[in-house]
């Protein structure tokens, strides 16, 4: 008889479905050949296209076709190598089951080498296929803002901020606190020495940090019993995290980008209203004010940035400009993605991330952190909040999810483009 007095029927069924024992069997191929199906689909499609194009080129040369063939050549090459490796692996696996002992031994010897080959070719393939985000190589700014509501959200915002700070320290990323606005009230203190945060900006100065943290943007939800709660009820509050592209401190290559009107980061100085928040009065030698706050307003978009962290107006202005550029670049990028999304089929648009979506839940009571997009549940919440390996696991899972989504979006884009190209012009007129 079972030790448990009662077992949920659906649990039993789900156990049976997974095949409880199978869960612990390590399959050698799983970790190396883990390409998303969408990626493989696209690779197959492109390879077919490449073959077709080369056949066309063999008969008559056309510059356009040659250019396209050149573009997809690398992918087709990588895919063919990958297919070859997979085929030989299958062959070896077939040999392993053969009755001949000598044959089995030989296959066993070859197996490891073939696995390595497969892993390498799959890596190459995914690199060749994955669309690269234009900001991917940049450092980033992580902005933490508490959601609407009471102080509980502010306390948790502080925890989230510290979580990213600790994560960067653990990973060895260089960081700088650009802004940290807190009201360290004595009347109310959150658990673990949390302070009520109003807004904080952390700059991660490593190149490629944007690609690493891109998936963190969105609403982070917390479910816990606040330290200030007397009757022990669980509260739910939210914290918004925005990840903005930034510039490397002494980057010479990207410096020119600011002045390039084509760049996402370009801002016409005439469109920005700069205000010093300084009391009126005689000024000059008559007064001795310490206010150094700077507020920048980008008039066309209405985006405002105010900075008052430093005593130096000079530093505040430089920081404010940096944040404004990053926000505007992000906004422009989002607008373009939105436009691209409108072209795609409606199936995909639901999977896309928008600003207001909750992406992650931190549940203190169940010691659980759930990422809603990657569908990943991890336990050991304290380690997540310390920015430990568990958080790294979540971030990596989101990364995988984002890559897959990017590829799907790319596929959908191409389909839409193909459809638009094939559609008879009559259809458009009818609209």
């Amino acid at each position, binding site marked *: 008889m079972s030790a448990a007095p009662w077992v949920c029927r659906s649990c039993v069924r789900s156990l049976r479905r997974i095949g409880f024992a199978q869960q612990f069997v390590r399959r050698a191929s799983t970790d190396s050949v883990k390409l998303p199906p969408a990626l493989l689909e696209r690779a197959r499609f492109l390879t077919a296209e490449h073959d077709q194009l080369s056949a066309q080129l063999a008969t008559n040369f056309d510059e356009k076709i040659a250019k396209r063939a050149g573009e997809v050549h690398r992918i087709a090459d990588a895919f063919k190598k990958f297919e070859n490796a997979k085929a030989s692996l299958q062959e070896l696996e077939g040999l392993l089951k053969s009755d001949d002992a000598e044959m089995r031994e030989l296959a066993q010897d070859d197996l490891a080498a073939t696995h390595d080959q497969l892993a390498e070719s799959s890596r190459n393939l995914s690199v060749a296929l994955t669309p690269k985000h234009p900001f991917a190589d940049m450092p980033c700014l992580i902005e933490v803002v508490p959601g609407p509501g009471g102080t509980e959200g502010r306390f948790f915002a502080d925890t989230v901020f510290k979580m990213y700070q600790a994560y960067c320290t653990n990973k060895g990323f260089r960081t700088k606190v650009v802004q940290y606005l807190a009201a360290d009230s004595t009347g109310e203190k959150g658990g673990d020495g949390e302070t009520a945060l109003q807004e904080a900006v952390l700059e991660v100065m490593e190149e490629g940090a944007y690609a690493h943290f891109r998936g963190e943007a969105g609403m982070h939800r917390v479910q816990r019993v606040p330290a200030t709660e007397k009757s022990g009820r669980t509260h739910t509050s939210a914290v918004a995290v925005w990840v903005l592209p930034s510039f490397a401190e002494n980057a010479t290559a990207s410096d020119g980008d600011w002045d390039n009107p084509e760049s996402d980061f370009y801002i016409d100085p005439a469109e920005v209203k700069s205000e010093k928040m300084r009391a009126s009065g*005689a000024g000059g*030698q008559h*007064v001795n004010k310490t206010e150094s706050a700077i507020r920048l307003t980008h008039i066309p978009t209405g985006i405002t940035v105010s900075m*008052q962290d430093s*005593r130096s107006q000079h530093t505040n202005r430089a920081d404010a400009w940096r944040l404004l550029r990053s926000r505007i670049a992000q906004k422009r990028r989002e607008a373009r993605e939105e436009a691209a999304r409108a072209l795609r089929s409606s199936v995909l648009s639901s999977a896309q991330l928008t600003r207001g979506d909750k992406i992650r839940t931190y549940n203190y009571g169940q010691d659980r952190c759930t990422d809603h997009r990657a569908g990943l549940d991890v336990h050991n919440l304290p380690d997540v909040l310390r920015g430990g390996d568990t958080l790294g696991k979540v971030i990596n899972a989101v990364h995988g999810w984002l890559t897959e989504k990017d590829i799907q979006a790319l596929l959908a884009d191409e389909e839409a483009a193909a459809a638009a190209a094939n559609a008879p012009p009559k259809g458009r007129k009818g609209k």
Partner: protein
Amino acid sequence: MPRLPPSLFWRARKQISPFAPLLLPVCRTLDSTANELRWIKQHVNSTKSLVPRRLRIWQACLKRGDRGMPLQYVLGTQPFGPLEILCRPGVLIPRPETESLIYHLHSILPRHSSQPLKILDLCTGTGCIPLLLSSLLPASTKISGVDISPQAISLSRENLTHNITLSHLPASASKSINFTKADIFSPGFVPSLGYKPGELDILVSNPPYISSHGFNTTTERSVRLFEPKLALVPQVTAEQYDCEPEDVFYARLLEIISVLQPKRVLFEVGDLDQAARVAAMVVRGKGALEVYAQAVEIWRDEPGVDSHEEGVTEKMGVDEEAEVEIKGQGNGRGVYFWRRDDQESE
């Protein structure tokens, strides 16, 4: 000043920190209290001492709030552009208005000058103007600062080495900048500088410009009590000059200018009325000053920011027939004039 409601003190205590009510009487708003307290904490955290941290914060808050000492004297520094200027009682604290005047002056200078510029700053105080100009201009620029106060001169020299150690300035700045103690009213002052007439490119000055009436009425308490009156109100009698007592430095500066014939001159002034008076002095100038009479501008606090629609320039009559252009936003803050003959030759 209106009285602060007691509820504000409670809110400062509850929302910011138990130290905050100490600072509230001088900061007057919760926002600026929170900022100043944060800066005090940062300062205390970044300096080492045997005295416990909270005690030092409390002491600093008492100095700042209870006695009203300027924060710059409490912390010992004031940012000025990219520089960090040391501040000490006895020497005037650099003002942000001076900073924006100097930035604007730099922005209108011709980009490529073949010869290194020669710059003179009279009444230099902490030395902030020479140091900022040196950080903005090529390293070959020769800059001199002059002040009457021995405290100011020793502090300005300290500031020079301080900013070189912080690597805000190149090491060569110690050679290209020099500070000398001198009284600009003494008869032998101009020859002692050793400039040939017309050799000097820029003359800058932020002299004491507050009238004794203004000192008692419009000047802030912490300025009156803690900053040197020598740097705020002219301590020289105006008998030999035909002008208001608070303008006496400008009258003397114009005498110096008529001998040195610098290419460009920038004065900081107290308000628009004073700016008009000083501009009138330049416009009416006789003899060697006539070359400047046609090229005078009044700058406001933010001379680089346009306050009007394009094409419209703000003008002000300073004399019976002369009108002077006013640039920027804010209070009248500076008078700028240049040698006309020189501009045409450029």
